[in-house]
């Protein structure tokens, strides 16, 4: 099999773009886990609903930029409402019920999507201004992917600065280490939970919008993206922000590069990496706690 060097470069680029989508998703998952100690099974649903909302906005107004700006606040709002109405009632109970609640939300959410949009997937066209490709010597990069990469890097850097440099970020970091201590210092932990959940859902919605033109939309994509996200946070290390970035990029690149040589294994490679990481370094590459 003749595989040109160029193809590998382009696939690595595609892998990085895909990886950045995973990064944005995994950041949300990991801060929720760090803060609230729960695995959010509805994370994939928020990704899906983000993509569908974007689809609606684009088909109504024809404006992709509007979707990009409007959808994350919408998903954040849904997240905040669900946290207030449903999740919050369960904080005092066994963690199992919180997990089950997010799982229930995901199931109902999928049914509502099916009810509203139907079971057939939708194709989502790349916005016109981002069609076409950039050429770099003999290499070519789709314009839309370059845009996604740039935006995702921007978001990630912003999130990093937010977590590391702001007061709210330091509360999140402290909460990941020791929740009781944070609340005993007089910080209103319930507001922090609310905002953390909302932020994570905004990120999930945003990644849904960004991924839609590349990967299409269907109501059943929530579970597969959820499985990948879980593998990414295990690879990177639970609760670690930089771990989420590293894990997401590694997963995306591995998936794309393996796709050249053995397409049918590209979905499985992430999980194989996950198993190797668990065996070699159980806490993940940059995990904060065991």
């Amino acid at each position, binding site marked *: 099999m003749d595989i040109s060097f160029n193809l590998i470069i382009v696939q690595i680029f595609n892998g990085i773009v895909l990886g950045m989508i995973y990064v944005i998703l995994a950041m949300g998952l990991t801060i929720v*886990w760090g803060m609230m*100690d*729960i*695995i959010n*099974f509805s994370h994939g649903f928020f990704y899906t609903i983000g993509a569908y909302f974007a689809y609606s906005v684009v088909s109504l107004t024809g404006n992709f930029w509007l979707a990009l700006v409007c959808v994350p606040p919408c998903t954040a709002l849904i997240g905040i409402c669900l946290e207030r109405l*449903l999740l919050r*009632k*369960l904080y005092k*109970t066994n*963690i*199992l*019920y919180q*997990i*089950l*609640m997010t*799982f*229930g*939300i995901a*199931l*109902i959410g999928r*049914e*509502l999507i*099916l*009810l509203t949009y139907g079971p057939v997937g939708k194709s989502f066209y790349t916005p016109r201004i981002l069609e076409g490709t950039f050429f770099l010597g003999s290499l070519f990069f789709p314009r839309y992917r370059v845009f996604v990469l740039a935006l995702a890097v921007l978001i990630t850097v912003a999130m990093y600065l937010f977590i590391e440099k702001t007061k709210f970020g330091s509360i999140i970091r402290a909460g990941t280490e020791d929740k009781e201590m944070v609340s005993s210092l007089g910080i209103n932990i319930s507001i922090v939970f609310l905002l953390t959940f909302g932020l994570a859902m905004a990120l999930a919605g945003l990644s849904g919008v960004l991924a839609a033109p590349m990967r299409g939309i269907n109501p059943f994509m929530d*579970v*597969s993206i*959820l*499985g*990948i996200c*879980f*593998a990414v*946070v*295990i690879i990177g290390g*639970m609760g670690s922000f930089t771990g989420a970035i590293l894990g997401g990029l590694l997963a995306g690149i591995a998936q794309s590069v393996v796709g050249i040589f053995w397409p*049918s*294994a590209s*979905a*499985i490679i992430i*999980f*194989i990496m*996950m*198993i190797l990481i*668990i065996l070699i370094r*159980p806490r993940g590459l940059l995990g904060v706690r*065991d």
Partner: protein
Amino acid sequence: MKNILKDNIGFIGLVITFSVLPLVLSYEALAIEVAIFSLAVIAFDLLLGYTGMMIFCQASFFGAATYVTGLSVIHLNASLFTAIFLGVGFAGILALTLGFFATMRKGSYSVLLTLAFSEMIFFIAYQWKSVTGGDDGLVGIVRPDLEILGLLKISLDTELRFYMLVLFFFLLSFFIIKRITESPFGKVLVGIRENESRAEAIGYNTRIFKLISFVICGLFLGLAGSLYALFMNFAHISNVAFDTSASIVMMEIIGGIGTLFGPILGALLVVLVSEKASALWARWPLIIGLTFIFFVLFARGGIWGLITSYVEKRRKSKK
């Protein structure tokens, strides 16, 4: 004598219920489905209800067994018990492997791990078309005859006969799982559920106990899967998909965690309601989902919990 009767009243009730089930329901296939999912959900109840371990890879054991049983019938021309044995054995090995990873860490991390593994197994089954048939599934799993020591040979071509077989396996499994929960081993499991660190402090190697419970759960889920393949004559990718795990979890929660009878009630209810409702409205899972949320929020004992507290209340008011 009276005591024996009193102790086993639940089991007797179960035998009676499942004996009349095919007569009451509109067709026997429905009764088979109820029995198979009851078996699957009590297997899970041992793990969640008695050991306190949540998983999301029920479908992996269930589905893997449907494939192995199907393949052994198609390619090896296996007899009934061999086919079931192979399916169950494979599910057991798979459970041992996944359990090894899932018991490494506690809490929500282990839940997340089981979902990731379940997705991996789904993708393997999906991509490995030459073996599993991919999206088209594995067709032509003909039920072998029931042969007992070469003496007896019964064809299982009618649904009623097959129901008898499934019922036998279900009641046997129920009996075994019930015995496990009442044994000293089962008491340790409950101890782990209530307070794992304390069980550890007393000197129990909780990981081994959890792993054994995990494997037992996998074996019985495998049994359910093997029977399901023979029942459907077909093994499909949806059996290893997340949705199968999800419905087992819903039956468990709606029925009542850690009660064995509750989950069976949950299975009965979910199977029957979905049978009736799917004809009326394609989006009926929405109602099941809302019911599920209701139980998670307000009635964590499930239906069984509601029934027992009601009975308790009446008994008290009589006094």
